[in-house]
């Protein structure tokens, strides 16, 4: 162990050691827990207690904990002595004992006390009536899992017949217990192999340690048995093993069972196929099997061929995400994913109209066709395939080329099947069309993939027909609001793509036509009686403006439509979500209308000033929080983008907004106000050219101090400081933190590095009653109180000198630390937990700690 490591451990041990206060409380707690007359503590408390013991024992393998606190062993003894302990206490005891026995010394100590055998051995709860309770079995498994971290524990388990118990628990009726048992076996097997083998294992010289031998034998036997549940358990175990352990010996193990597993793919009698995909996927991720030479990949290929499309789908998508994988396996995986899409395309189009996605010679479509023609499987197969394709398309680096154009055609066919717009050209097509009509799940999944596809190249020839499909969805009154939202998302993505730089004349005309149609339908949707539709329409508009506001065609189409006027109307919508979205949309619209150089606003009921006034009115009078939050966010956005300068005096604007928001009841609005202040401060400082601003010219110290002075005066005039200092004491902590950050930032501006020390003179001179009051108030206020009413004690927040002094003298750094400390640091402490347990059993009269 290096010096640094031992130092770290020593520090950790010290940090997480038991405090004397806790040591005093612990016996009482243990006694209470073991007392059957006391009401059982709630499970959360017991869990927290176990967490604490885990922390206590993690860095301290010594026996001290149990020796110094005999109450712990007494607790175990007394629980064991109880004729009928409650299952939750027994489970707790099992897990506690496991945690304690995780180190060899403490294990020995507990062994000497004869406790472990009575807990985990044949004579323990294992053979009592309490074993019927799943929580007891779960405690037993958890206890053993914690304990088996050293040889004596492993021997204790293997020699005492514990392994057989775990084998049985694999098939436990409680899924939690069964899964924990499976994980425990993985742990025991790994631990046994890694701690007990002296030389590397190989297929020729395969001398498994005794415990591992038992487990491997069990796996082999189960795999060969005719019981589906046994096979399933072993496959689960192997899946867990290959997922968590990447050591070379796993390959040796694999070679012992590979043949058996291969047979599952082809044997119809064994229903284990559904487990195989997951197993193979976990193996594929393990570097042990990534060797392209091995027979493993042949097995994967065979699985992709033999499993049903639904079973093989997750394996296929997993394989395609792998970095190291033979190309032919990738192609096979791709075939699995594309086959349903291919089938759709063939069913939808005339023979020979389009080449399918796949070469017919490599794929046999009969299975997929039969799945797609069945009402029960069609939608689920398609949704799964589409979800997988979306996953693939979201990858930046795809190691295979997807036939994007055909994929798009197939997606369009699905969408048209779903809205009944496609006359199928084949009997299969008629069947699929009948099943898919009005299927919302498939529509949503297909639109997701369509959106993801917009980022891929090679579909330009289909743009016209693609927008026909999308517009049909946007226009149709039968489109459900959720599908409409997805259709909007896909449309916006494709519109953004359309506006690429390399546009020919004809493409431009096409784009103009599409935009015209889109705004026509948007116009109608903005008047929809369903608020969800109005809301998603506004969000759609905002996204479009965000990405396309620099494009001439877009601006022209938008401004020549009725959309801007209708959007402004929605600022008065009765639904608050819609008002909020309208605020955001109008805010973005302003970038094109009022803030654009040419500003060609036509026919709007609002002009620039009216819009600002309208938004300010919403900020001060709207009864709901969402629209007000939206307004403050838009104002901040405007300020950040430098648009407010054209409005009027930015300073006055900010000042007015701050006065509106500082008394807002919604903390997020106030937080938005602080954000606005932050942007304003940095903009002002930047504009006035303080040297800390990287883009500003370097100025001499003299000019710098003048500018400091100027910016300070601006901030004072804008009444920033009152808001900032008051926010320090805000009952919602994020505001205090944010205000403190801003003030610290201002301090560093006005007192550049080292100048506070230089200006000790300021601190030495008495700060005056008002600043002293501020300091005092802040010290108290940061704990609980709210800031008293303005100017109550003569602090003039608009006086630059006082504020300069305040920045220098108020201990902002300490405040910062205090605000950032977790508010429940007191309540989270182990003392508090112990007291809490004692309180619930009524042994402590005075309960000082507040536990929430």
């Amino acid at each position, binding site marked *: 162990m290096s010096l640094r490591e031992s130092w770290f451990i020593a520090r950790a041990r010290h940090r997480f050691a038991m405090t004397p206060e806790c040591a005093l409380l612990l016996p009482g707690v243990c006694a209470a827990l073991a007392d059957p007359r006391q009401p059982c503590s709630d499970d959360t408390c017991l869990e927290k207690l176990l967490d604490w013991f885990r922390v206590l024992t993690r860095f301290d393998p010594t026996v001290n904990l149990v020796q110094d606190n005999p109450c712990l062993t007494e607790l175990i003894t007394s629980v064991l002595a109880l004729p009928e302990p409650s299952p939750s206490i027994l489970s707790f005891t099992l897990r506690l004992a496991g945690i304690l026995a995780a180190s060899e010394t403490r294990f020995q100590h507990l062994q000497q006390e004869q406790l472990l055998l009575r807990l985990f051995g044949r004579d323990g709860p294992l053979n009592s009536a309490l074993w019927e309770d799943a929580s007891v079995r779960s405690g037993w498994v958890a206890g053993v899992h914690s304990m088996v971290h050293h040889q004596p524990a492993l021997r204790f388990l293997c020699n005492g017949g514990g392994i057989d118990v775990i084998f049985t628990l694999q098939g436990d009726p409680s899924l939690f217990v069964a899964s924990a048992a499976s994980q425990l076996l993985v742990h025991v097997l790994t631990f046994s192999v890694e701690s007990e083998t002296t030389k590397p294992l190989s297929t020729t010289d395969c001398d498994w340690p005794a415990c591992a031998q038992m487990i491997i034998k069990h796996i082999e036997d189960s795999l060969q048995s005719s019981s589906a549940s046994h096979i399933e358990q072993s496959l689960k175990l192997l899946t867990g093993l290959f997922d968590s352990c990447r050591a070379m010996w796993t390959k040796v193990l694999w070679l012992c069972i590979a043949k058996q597993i291969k047979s599952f793919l082809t044997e119809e009698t064994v229903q284990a196929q559904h487990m195989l995909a997951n197993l193979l996927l976990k193996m594929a991720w393990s570097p042990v099997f990534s060797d392209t030479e091995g027979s493993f990949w042949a097995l994967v290929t065979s699985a992709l061929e033999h499993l049903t499309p639904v079973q093989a789908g997750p394996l296929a998508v997993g394989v395609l995400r792998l970095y190291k994988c033979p190309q032919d396996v990738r192609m096979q995986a791709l075939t699995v994913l594309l086959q349903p899409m291919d089938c759709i395309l063939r069913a939808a189009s005339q023979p020979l109209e389009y080449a399918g996605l796949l070469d017919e010679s490599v794929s046999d479509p009969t299975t997929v066709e039969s799945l797609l023609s069945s009402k029960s499987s069609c939608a689920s197969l398609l949704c799964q395939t589409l979800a997988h394709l979306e996953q693939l398309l979201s990858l930046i680096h795809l190691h295979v080329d997807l036939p994007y154009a055909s994929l798009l055609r197939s997606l369009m066919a699905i969408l048209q099947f779903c809205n*009944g717009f496609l006359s199928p050209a084949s009997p299969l097509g008629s069947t699929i069309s009948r099943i898919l009509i009005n299927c919302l799940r498939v529509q949503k999944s297909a639109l997701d993939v369509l959106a993801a596809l917009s980022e891929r190249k090679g579909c330009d020839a289909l743009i016209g027909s693609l927008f026909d499909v999308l517009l049909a969805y946007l226009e149709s009154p039968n489109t459900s609001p959720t599908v409409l939202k997805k259709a909007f998302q896909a449309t916006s993505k494709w519109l953004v793509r359309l506006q690429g730089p390399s546009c020919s004349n004809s493409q431009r005309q096409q784009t103009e036509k599409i935009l015209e149609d889109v705004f026509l339908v948007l116009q109608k949707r903005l008047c929809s009686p369903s608020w969800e539709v109005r809301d998603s329409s506004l969000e759609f508009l905002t996204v479009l403006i965000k990405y396309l506001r620099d494009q001439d065609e877009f601006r022209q189409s938008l401004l020549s439509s009725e959309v801007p006027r209708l959007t402004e109307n929605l600022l008065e919508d009765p639904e608050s979500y819609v008002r909020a979205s309208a605020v955001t949309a109008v805010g973005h619209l302003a970038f094109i209308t009022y803030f654009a150089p040419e500003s060609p606003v036509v026919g709007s009921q609002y002009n620039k000033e009216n819009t600002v006034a309208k938004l300010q009115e919403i900020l001060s009078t709207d009864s709901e929080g969402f629209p007000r939050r939206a307004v403050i966010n838009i104002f901040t956005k405007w300020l950040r983008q430098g648009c407010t300068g054209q409005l009027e005096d930015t300073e006055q604007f900010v000042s007015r907004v701050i006065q509106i928001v500082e008394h807002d009841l919604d903390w997020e609005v106030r937080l938005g106000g602080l954000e606005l202040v932050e942007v304003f401060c940095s903009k002002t400082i930047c504009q006035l050219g303080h040297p800390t601003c990287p883009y500003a010219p370097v100025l001499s110290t003299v000019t710098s101090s003048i500018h400091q002075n100027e910016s300070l005066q601006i901030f004072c005039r804008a009444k920033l400081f009152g808001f900032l200092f008051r926010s320090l004491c805000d009952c919602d902590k994020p505001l205090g933190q944010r205000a403190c950050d801003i003030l610290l930032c201002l301090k560093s501006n006005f007192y550049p590095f080292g100048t506070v020390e230089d200006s000790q003179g300021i601190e030495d001179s008495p700060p005056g009653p008002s600043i002293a009051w501020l300091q005092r108030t802040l010290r108290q206020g940061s704990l609980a109180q709210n800031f008293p009413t303005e100017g109550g004690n003569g602090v003039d927040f608009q006086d630059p000198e006082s504020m300069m002094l305040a920045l220098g003298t108020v201990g902002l750094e300490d405040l910062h630390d205090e605000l950032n400390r977790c508010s429940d640091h007191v309540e989270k402490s182990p003392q508090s937990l112990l007291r809490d347990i004692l309180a619930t059993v009524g042994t402590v009269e005075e309960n000082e700690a507040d536990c929430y």
Partner: protein
Amino acid sequence: MKLYCLSGHPTLPCNVLKFKSTTIMLDCGLDMTSTLNFLPLPLVQSPRLSKLPGWVLKDGSTFLDKELKECSGHVFVDSVPEFCLPETELLDLSTVDVILISNYHCMMALPYITEYTGFTGTVYATEPTVQIGRLLMEELVNSIERVPKAQSASMWKNKEVQRLLPAPLKDAVEVSMWRKCYTMPEVNAALSKIQLVGYSQKIELFGAVQVTPLSSGYALGSSNWIIQSHYEKVSYVSGSSLLTTHPQPMDQASLKNSDVLILTGLTQIPTANPDGMVGEFCSNLAMTVRNGGNVLVPCYPSGVIYDLLECLYQYIDSAGLSNVPFYFISPVANSSLEFSQIFAEWLCHNKQTKVYLPEPPFPHAELIQTNKLKHYPSIHGDFSNDFKQPCVVFTGHPSLRFGDVVHFMELWGKSSLNTVIFTEPDFSYLDALAPYQPLAMKCVYCPIDTRLNFIQVSKLLKEVQPLHVVCPEQYTQPPPTQSHRTDLMIDCQPPPMSYRRAEVLTLPYKRRYEKIEIMPELADSLVPLEIKPGISLATVSAVLHTKDNKHVLQLPPKPPQPPTSKKRKRVSDDVPECKPLKPLLSGSIPVDQFVQTLEKHGFSDVKVEDTAKGHIVLLQEAETLIQIEEDSTHIICDNDEPLRVKLRDLVLKFLQKF
């Protein structure tokens, strides 16, 4: 059981069911699509319409130019609009016993049937159906009568002439049967034949069948009908809806176990979901009004308009349309709005509960109170003083051929700011608009049809499981314009039987049982004899008395007393003469024992032969044969009656009597 199909229109049905000696007409719908071939009737002289050129044949003949006018490539009859009646020749309609009406849209042909065919029966309908049906008829008569036409075109109907006309006139069916609108006295006479019924009320028809109306969920008072006897059940489903709009929900459970289910009146626009269409309606309305345009909604004075007004009530404030006036113009507007509020028991549960609160069931009352919705009997009078634009006008008729809507089409058609929104699904909106072309105003088609769609039908059929389904042929194939939509047809097993206009269907159901009552005194006299465990038999001798399709077994009359006087009673003439009853025999004759018995009684030369059906016992000396078979025994001997009687008695010893 036979079904006579008198109408080819699937949502305006008129069928006659012959079932157990009753003749029941199911609905009496009037196909008004024929009016689309006529020019509109303008309330105010329309220079445009009066200047339309007469139609000239290809060869230049102008003999039809007074009757037919041409407008934007379409030819219209310049005459009073006429309607296509249900088939009247298929069976003698005077034999119809009753007419069952399912909703107010399906009774518009009633005066033609009750007043012109010698009909003497009764019509059954619910109260809202009658009241609202009367309003619809009143509006129809009023709209047509107030614009008298000087001429009446008939030349074009001549078969030879019709052949020369352009489509669709050329293809119009049975134009010779088209009739002008009825008059108010005829309406009143027809309605006086209606007897009001309530949901689930059982009505006996001549003791043969029982008919019961059930709520169908489509309109105020709309019903489906159950027609049943003791052993047969026919359900008539017409215009039903599962959506939660204003009427009472549909009663599906009572339709279970039908032998035959006649299914008509499904949605006419299966691809349009009513919710989406209402959204579309509101969006287009708001968009037009915000742009300063007027909105025209051609509609019936009752039905969907209530739901539309309710949606608008919720929508107008949110859409900032509070200041836009809504006008409802119809001669029956006031009655329609008021009637809807008083039919509490026919409304959905939600609205029923409002009756007990100090608020009316429909919110249009509030719209009227707050002056947002104003109603007028016609465009003349008060309306012209109050009229402000932009506004929204609801008025009839949806065919755009008569009613106040004609005026607004002429008034607003020239401006692209205005919009006409079609909500009624009964007429093709393009055909309706044809005589107004070229038209600048925007047209939006949002048909709102709340009747069952095919998915709902398939669920309904799975639920109620009728043995046979009978429906119009249109429902057994995809719509002609969307032949790939195989989901838009009825899919059930066995496949439905389809009918078309003027067809007679023999329904595939055979009657097998009839219920007969036994009088208590007669039942008392029966003595059942157990012949097998669990099966007892008794002979019944009684008189079968049949009256009003009810069958009763009564005690037979006592044997006639010797006449006390010489006068014979008249009553005894009717009673069949009653002979003493012979007992019925059962059991089988064991041949061996029978032979032994014969021998005991002195027949020594008994021979037995086996035959295919039994045995022959031969008494050689007496030259007598006894033929014993499973269900008969014959004694054949030559004129020796004492011997036959003796042998008969021996045979009877082996049989049970009761």
